[in-house]
């Protein structure tokens, strides 16, 4: 007995054990390990998943290509050379179409998509449930309800304050869902998701309640916002969202590292020395803030936060949800969906939120049909 124990592998520091585990789980190809350690400084090192880097670069290239295509296509075709000249000089015959109409909404679409994708990855990592993404658990509805109330009552004057309003709404809804789903701890499973769905329905009912008697002009404005469209939005929405994303960047870098052990179950993560509750709270709040800001900028756009992390993980083949690749996938999905929504039925524009729901709904159904998606 004792001889067998001595012959076994020597005890290792837990952190290294995680690395080993990942090595064994992900397929290593051609004898190369799937991860590399970057050590730019003796006291600073990064663990880099080789395939993820390739996927991220490919996604970035594809995103830029679709953005360029989107700048060319539309009601009137503008050749790439003309687009480039209009961008560079800010003048010329296509200046209005390119610089005033198309580029702002493309940039906004990419930012909104990136924020939603990152938010989805964060929240799904914490709940360890592909269904518990921000749009399913009521964050989008909360942000929407707060924004509608602010618009309908005219309580918030300046457009610069609108992101704050939507963040407050999203955080409030998330907190409400959390409290109502709480019974000796929040299970990531069914109760949380069901309460989230219910709160979402109640909040959209509140929106309807306020639509019923607000002034006609305010109601029109709210209806336009509620369709979840990038039409007629631009720099004034993209600016605050970009600022929030920039401010959140350090937190995102932290979350990318800190959320990794959360993919394990809570006991294992705690045994590895992670303060599970604090990390969970921080990562969730970050995800909710991102999702709520994105909703405030472009209206409720469903299913991007749900699908992007899952798509990204299938591309990178990592055990946990890749944060950067999820953000890039979200941006790509939304910019592409907006391009389709603009050009499918000219001269009409389909709200991009309707399009993502049409594509995302079957995906959610497929996810449900699989075994073990819901425990």
């Amino acid at each position, binding site marked *: 007995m004792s001889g067998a124990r001595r012959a076994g592998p020597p005890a290792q520091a837990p952190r290294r054990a995680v690395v080993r585990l990942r090595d064994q789980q992900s397929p290593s190809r051609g004898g190369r390990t799937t991860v590399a350690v970057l050590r730019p400084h003796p006291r600073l090192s990064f663990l880099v998943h080789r395939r993820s880097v390739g996927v991220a670069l490919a996604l970035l290239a594809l995103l830029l290509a679709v953005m360029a295509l989107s700048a060319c296509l539309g009601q009137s075709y503008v050749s790439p050379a003309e687009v480039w000249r209009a961008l560079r000089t800010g003048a010329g015959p296509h200046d209005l179409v390119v610089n005033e109409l198309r580029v702002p909404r493309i940039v906004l679409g990419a930012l909104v998509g990136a924020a939603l994708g990152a938010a989805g990855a964060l929240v799904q990592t914490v709940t360890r449930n592909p269904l518990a993404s921000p749009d399913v658990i009521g964050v989008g509805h909360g942000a929407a309800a707060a924004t509608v109330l602010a618009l309908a009552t005219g309580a918030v004057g300046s457009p610069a304050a609108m992101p704050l309003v939507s963040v407050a709404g999203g955080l409030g809804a998330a907190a409400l869902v959390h409290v109502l789903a709480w019974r000796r701890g929040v299970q990531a499973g069914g109760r949380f998701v069901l309460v989230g769905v219910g709160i979402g329905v109640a909040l959209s009912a509140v929106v309807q309640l306020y639509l019923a008697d607000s002034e006609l002009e305010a109601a029109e404005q709210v209806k336009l916002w509620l369709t979840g469209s990038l039409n007629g939005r631009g720099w004034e929405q993209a600016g605050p969202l970009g600022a929030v994303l920039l401010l959140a960047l350090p937190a995102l870098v932290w979350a990318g590292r800190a959320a990794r052990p959360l993919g394990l179950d809570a006991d294992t993560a705690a045994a590895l020395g992670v303060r599970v509750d604090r990390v969970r709270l921080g990562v969730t709040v970050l995800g909710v803030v991102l999702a709520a800001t994105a909703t405030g900028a472009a209206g409720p756009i469903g299913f991007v936060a749900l699908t992007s992390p899952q798509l990204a993980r299938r591309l990178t083949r990592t055990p946990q949800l890749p944060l950067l690749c999820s953000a890039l996938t979200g941006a790509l999905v939304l910019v592409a969906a907006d391009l389709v929504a603009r050009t499918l039925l000219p001269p009409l524009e389909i709200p991009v*939120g*309707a399009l993502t729901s049409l594509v995302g*709904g079957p995906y959610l159904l497929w996810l449900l049909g699989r075994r073990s998606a819901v425990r």
Partner: protein
Amino acid sequence: MIRRLAWPASVLVVAAAGVLSLTVGTRAVPLSAVADALLHGGGSPDALVVRSLRLPRTEIGLTAGAALGVAGAALQAVTRNPLADPGILGLSQGAAAGVVIAIGLGLADGFSGYVWYAFAGAVLAALLVYGIAARGRDGASPVKLALAGTALSAMTAGGTTVVLTSSAATLDQFRFWQVGALSGRDAGTVVRMLPFLAAGAVLVLGCARGLDALALGDDTARALGHRVAWVRGSAALGAALLTAAAVAAAGPIAFVGLAVPHLARRLVPGGHRAVLPLSALLGAALLVGADVAGRVVRAPAEVPAGVMTALVGVPVLVFLVRRRGAVS
């Protein structure tokens, strides 16, 4: 005591809701004037309001609420699931999508045209949601059914928006119907609803004993001599018919069928032969009551009844989800 009083009390509540619905509104009509208008007609403004506006909407509220209550009770028994409701399971949105497609393609106008497409949409949605949720090891659990219904609702809502964006005429016809309001329906609607309601009610009530047996599990039900598949199919078809008729008349109204059967089961003993009729009464009272509340809460504007039922229904949903054993 409570059990003996349940029936008369429910009838009283329905009657009170009906009377309130006839008297309360932007123009308050005194009770005597209501009685006068109903019995003698006449051309006074009060009589006109009562006979041409309030009476049709009260009738529709009563019948649609009763239909949704029975449909909810039947669905909860069929899926053996406390969270089943025509709205949560996606039947209502399926029926709505059927109506929108019919309007968009110019196939139908008015209730008699809508109802067939609503029926087709509700049946398709029921099959799809149940088929997807029943896959996998643990079968059609409450979470999976609810999520499949939500996903389907989101998808059909997206499709509906696409149709509406591309056709202004459809939007104009649809938007009054979509919000789940009882106002603005013409007087004959309720008469045309009745055959569908009767067929659905016969289908569901005919297998009330079978539904009782289903609660004991498929094997026990079979051992007791019930044809399980037949009971399920007939009750689900009846629920789809009832939902389709209610949706075609009043728009997609959710949550009426969720709370009502739970209340009915607590109030009366005797299984589904008592629970189903009591669900009908309570559903009628709930929908008409929600409609009255919608007229009062932000007067002089009107809040659609569907919005009010959602506000009432969500706390019930949260309560049921939190209760032990509802979600495994």
